[in-house]
């Protein structure tokens, strides 16, 4: 009896050891997330040609993503001006005081000076999954003589018709070398993917195009913080007694004077009273 039990025990222990090894392997795989190898992706993926141009790095810490084209826009109230200095210390010094007086001929303007706080994204989480309402249209020949708008219009017309297997188009987007179309009815999207191949009139030609499922992305989280623009100050509550050009000149003169706490001014823009302004910032190239 005990011999049989021993056997059972042994085989169970062997099984456990095998299971533990397998679990460890899977946990290891989970810890090193990879972008799927090409063979596993069932839908056509547009090709983007890239080249090695000499940029290398040693060591394991490779950032997986590149962030570019940063643009930050900050609304400005009417009756304000934004002054940007070469030296951030000048801006910092001016910000120590909230109230300032600007000399004009025999009197002065009382204004306020504030820092500019710009929103920046510090962390982004994006997940993606196949979107049953959207399809990817690909296979466009090079040298198509159509503008982006014209191409999108023609595709929306073609794929909007039930006789072509299509239906109401809700969204459309030009991507690199391909187009995304979103349909009101997901059955239309699925049907189009099943048909797969279409001959679509684009201008003078009938072009063979391919329709496949679209994987779309969604922001799960985007953490934001406010970063101060170090070289600039916002001048507010400027009394409305001068026209824009006069105001511009007076502010420029005032803020260049070291005796008044100013310094070399890189840029100065005035937002006249009764108007709104939008200040645009980008990241300074490192």
């Amino acid at each position: 009896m005990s011999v049989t039990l021993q056997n059972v025990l042994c085989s169970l222990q062997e099984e456990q050891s095998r299971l533990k090894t397998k679990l460890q392997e899977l946990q290891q795989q989970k810890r090193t997330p990879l972008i799927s190898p090409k063979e596993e992706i069932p839908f056509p993926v547009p090709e983007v040609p890239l080249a090695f141009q000499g940029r290398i790095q040693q060591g394991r810490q490779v950032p997986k993503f590149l962030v570019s084209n940063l643009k930050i826009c900050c609304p400005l109230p009417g009756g304000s001006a934004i002054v940007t200095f070469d030296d951030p210390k000048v801006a910092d010094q001016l910000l120590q005081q909230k109230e300032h007086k600007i000399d004009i001929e025999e009197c002065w303007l009382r204004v306020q000076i504030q820092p500019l706080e710009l929103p920046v994204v510090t962390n982004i989480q994006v997940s993606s999954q196949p979107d049953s309402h959207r399809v990817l249209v690909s296979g466009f020949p090079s040298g198509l003589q159509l503008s982006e708008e014209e191409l999108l219009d023609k595709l929306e017309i073609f794929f909007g018709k039930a006789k072509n297997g299509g239906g109401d188009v809700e969204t459309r987007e030009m991507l690199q070398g391909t187009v995304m179309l979103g349909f009101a009815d997901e059955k239309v999207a699925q049907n189009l993917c099943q048909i797969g191949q279409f001959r679509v009139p684009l201008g003078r030609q009938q072009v063979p195009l391919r329709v496949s499922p679209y994987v779309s992305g969604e922001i799960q989280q985007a953490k934001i913080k406010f970063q101060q623009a170090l070289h600039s100050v916002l001048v507010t509550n400027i009394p409305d007694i001068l026209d824009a050009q006069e105001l511009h000149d007076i502010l420029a003169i005032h803020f260049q004077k070291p005796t008044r706490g100013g310094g070399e001014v890189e840029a100065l823009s005035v937002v006249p009273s009764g108007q709104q302004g939008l200040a645009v910032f980008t990241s300074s190239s490192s």
Partner: protein
Amino acid sequence: MDADTDNKKHSPEKEVMKTEQNEGLIHEIMRENLHLEQEIKKLEAELCSDAREFQIKENIPERNLKFISVESSEHDDRFSNSCCSFQVSSQISYEIQKGQALITFEKEEVAQNVITMGKHVVQMEKAPVKVTAHPVPLNIGVKFQVHVNISKMKINVTGIPDELPEEQTRDKLELSFCKSKNGGGEVESVDYDKKSGSAVITFVEAGVADKILKKKDYPLNMNSKCYRVTVTPFIERRLEKYQVFSAISKRTVLLTGLEDVWMDEEIVEDLISIHFQRKNNGGGEVDVVKCSLDQPYIAYFED
């Protein structure tokens, strides 16, 4: 024989106890194995769905900000939001292993020709080295645009007590938020959700939102009591132009076969460059060469 002797040494009671212990142990191991199998199934399912989905979690490093320009207009909806937008794209790279090199040609046709020819013999200082040319295997990547808009006219309010009926609460919110002594301003509309105890307040003027958000909470008066509700920015987050792409290398070629070369990497790169510049060798104008003779290098692929 030994088994008999062993059996004679064990009393029947000990025999039963040992059996019971074994049975207990067996049940425990069976339970553990079942648990392990469940863990394995769960992980396999997760890995399977991970493979289909790209999960991106990235910290974005801080950068210095530079002023560009000011646009002015009489009235524009864009001017009621602060916004931040940027492009994110997968960094495509290849790890050059020891004994490998990457060579980028000016022209695609030259690169393709070098790959088609396959084997090349490059003169090194001491002896010729046989290298093989391959296409560079690159990954699938993803790219998209992120747009984040922070409203200057709307705020989120949470923690609104459920004491009064919906209509009355809406009125109380409007009354409290228009009091300028508390930092409020004229209210354009109130969007109140009784179930979640939250609301979106839209002000007539931009700038009121900023003032209120300087503090984390705001006084809400309901009948004779004063509550403090939480205020947070009204933020819209949006992705555009999300696309998966397959990176391919048309001008860069992978060379293998340098494992036994014991020279300075820079010298080897020069010799490779010289060899592949010659049309007679099937080459052409060379842009860049990088080889690894010791430590691997991560090589970035760019537009």
